[in-house]
């Protein structure tokens, strides 16, 4: 393997670990410790999609995400400390504590934000892409969403418009088989999700979302086309969430062993480690080194965020409106 490729793979590996450890911290420390409010939707199991896809984009490309967006945020460059601070409601969070886990955003990094209203980010993506096109930029906009979002009217209207107006949108569907408790076969009349954009003349493709390199390559390919031809693309990633839908999910809709079994077989981080080790890209000790280093980094970010100040109650009263205008 070329040094450059090796470096890239390790970069992906690092980012995936970072997301995983961040979310494990949320799951194992923040939630039990009640350092967290509302709803947290962990993407443990879906890291390869976030990392592979976002690394295939240019830095100035924009990303809109969903309720399950910690991974997208982090892959786009948000720093763990400001994310921890935000999900713990601190003044120093990326949204000053006003957004929380479901509303992470960072304008400077092109992470336009999580939109936890299912489907609702897709028309926004079309609008962002329209702006890029009007500006004459070849920036593109990636919209992540779950397979459940395909059934929203918003997706339909956005996909038709993006195709009609030839807007540079990547529609990136993460098929993790469930929308809360509802399995794919009870939400979509057609099971071949990659065909669900044909009605707009967009040919979809299914991609193994558990292999970061496959994700990266697939997104690179369509991103290039989207960028050059200014047409939307659509990919469906096979993936799985190993945790419940959110914190309080009883998971009655799947067997106790299903998630464990899937995890054993399909964990994208294990898959990547196994392959890297197997083809001698990295020696085992290096993976351990990576794991330790990133975990320490996440621990530190967490500890730091934990010390950060709470907002004053009255800060709630400011910020609904921009002052002045144009």
């Amino acid at each position, binding site marked *: 393997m070329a040094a450059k490729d090796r470096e890239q793979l390790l970069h992906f590996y690092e980012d995936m670990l970072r997301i995983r450890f961040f979310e494990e911290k949320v799951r194992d420390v923040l939630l039990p410790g009640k350092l967290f409010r509302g709803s947290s939707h962990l993407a443990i199991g879906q890291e390869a999609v976030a990392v592979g896809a976002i690394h295939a984009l240019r830095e100035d490309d924009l990303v809109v995400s969903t309720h399950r967006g910690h991974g997208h945020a982090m892959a786009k460059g948000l720093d763990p400390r400001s994310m921890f601070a935000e999900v713990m409601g601190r003044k120093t969070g990326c949204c000053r*504590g*006003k*957004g*929380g886990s479901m509303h992470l955003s960072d304008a400077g990094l092109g992470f336009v934000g999580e939109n936890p*209203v299912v489907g609702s980010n897709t028309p926004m993506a079309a609008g962002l892409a329209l702006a890029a096109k009007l500006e004459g930029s070849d920036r593109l906009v990636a919209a992540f969403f779950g397979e459940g979002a395909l059934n929203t*009217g918003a997706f339909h209207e956005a996909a038709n418009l993006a195709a009609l107006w030839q807007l540079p949108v990547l529609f990136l569907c993460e098929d993790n088989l469930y*929308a*809360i408790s509802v399995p794919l076969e009870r939400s979509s009349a057609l099971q071949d999700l990659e065909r669900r954009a044909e009605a707009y003349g967009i040919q979809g493709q299914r991609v193994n979302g558990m292999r970061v390199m496959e994700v990266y390559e697939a997104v690179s390919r369509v991103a290039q086309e989207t960028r050059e031809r200014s047409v939307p693309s659509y990919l469906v990633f096979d993936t799985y969430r190993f945790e419940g839908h959110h914190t309080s999910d009883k998971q009655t809709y799947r067997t106790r062993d299903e998630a464990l079994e899937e995890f054993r077989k399909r964990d994208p981080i294990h898959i990547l480690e196994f392959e890297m080790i197997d083809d001698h890209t990295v020696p085992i000790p290096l993976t351990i080194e990576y794991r330790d280093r990133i975990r320490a980094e996440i621990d530190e970010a967490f500890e730091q965020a934990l010390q950060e100040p709470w907002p004053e109650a009255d800060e*709630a009263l400011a910020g609904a409106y921009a002052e002045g205008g144009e």
Partner: protein
Amino acid sequence: MAEKLRNITFAQAIRTALRAEMKRDERVILFGEDVGYYGGVYGATVGLQKEFGEDRVRDTPISEMAIGGVAVGAALAGYRPVAEIMYCDFLAHASDAIVNNAAKWRYMSGGQFALPIVFRSPGGGGAGYAAQHSQSLEAWFAHIPGLKVVAPSLPRDARGLLKAAIRDDNPVVFLEHKAHYTFKGEVPVEEEVIPLGVAEVKRAGNDVTVVSWSKTLTFALEAAETLAAEGIDTEVIDPRTLQPLDIEAILASIGKTRHLVVAHEAVQFGGLGGEIVAQVAERALDSLKRPPVRVAAPFVPIPYSEPMELRVIPQVADIVAGVRRSLG
């Protein structure tokens, strides 16, 4: 003879009502996201699919426009659908069906059709769900002719009002409070159907009238206890139904107390507190010894972080302060 009571949660009260009405009338059907197999994200429909089958209790895709429209269609064909919209913020998505169709089809048709639909939806904040999952939108729907709007506070009301809503031949927007599903209260063992449009005096008092509903009503009752310790005797009125609104009950109370406070979680500007104050000002201006007071959310979205969220959502202390202000 003393009523026989049992102590159940708000969610159980909802479930009990749904179950009883489904047993009573085959035409009652349920659908919405995750209401079937899973039993609803707040557990309000647990066990119902098992008991009544997949035909009558259905999981839908994430398609609120369709949920709303299917309810309208099924009702027009003689069924009595109870549709759940998982968060009242997403009533926005279903509002064409609710507002443009359900509310108007009977009138526009010159009375040919009836639309016996209940749109159940949890609203409200206080649990850290932030701006898009915490709104209180009762004012939207109470403003729409053709709809009824119910916002129960105690489990007993939830059960009795939901039964009435299901039996009503009109579309009813039935607003629950997401931070209130585990709230416990006593309900009679016997069947009880609480008629829509009738307020209840939840606490009798002579000095000031506090009108409140949904979760905030329980804060008002707490506030009344605090105030009682200071010698202020608060009457707490729960309209229970916001459309139609039992203004007579409110006027009767003000006739006695001559002071009015309205407390609700929704944003103050354009909230139903304004409607109540206006009706009182129109019809009983001279009864008011002092300016009426509204205790409601300031004009901002709901923030995530706890200190800020508590600042925005009216708390017991805010109601206490409001009552004091109303007494001058």
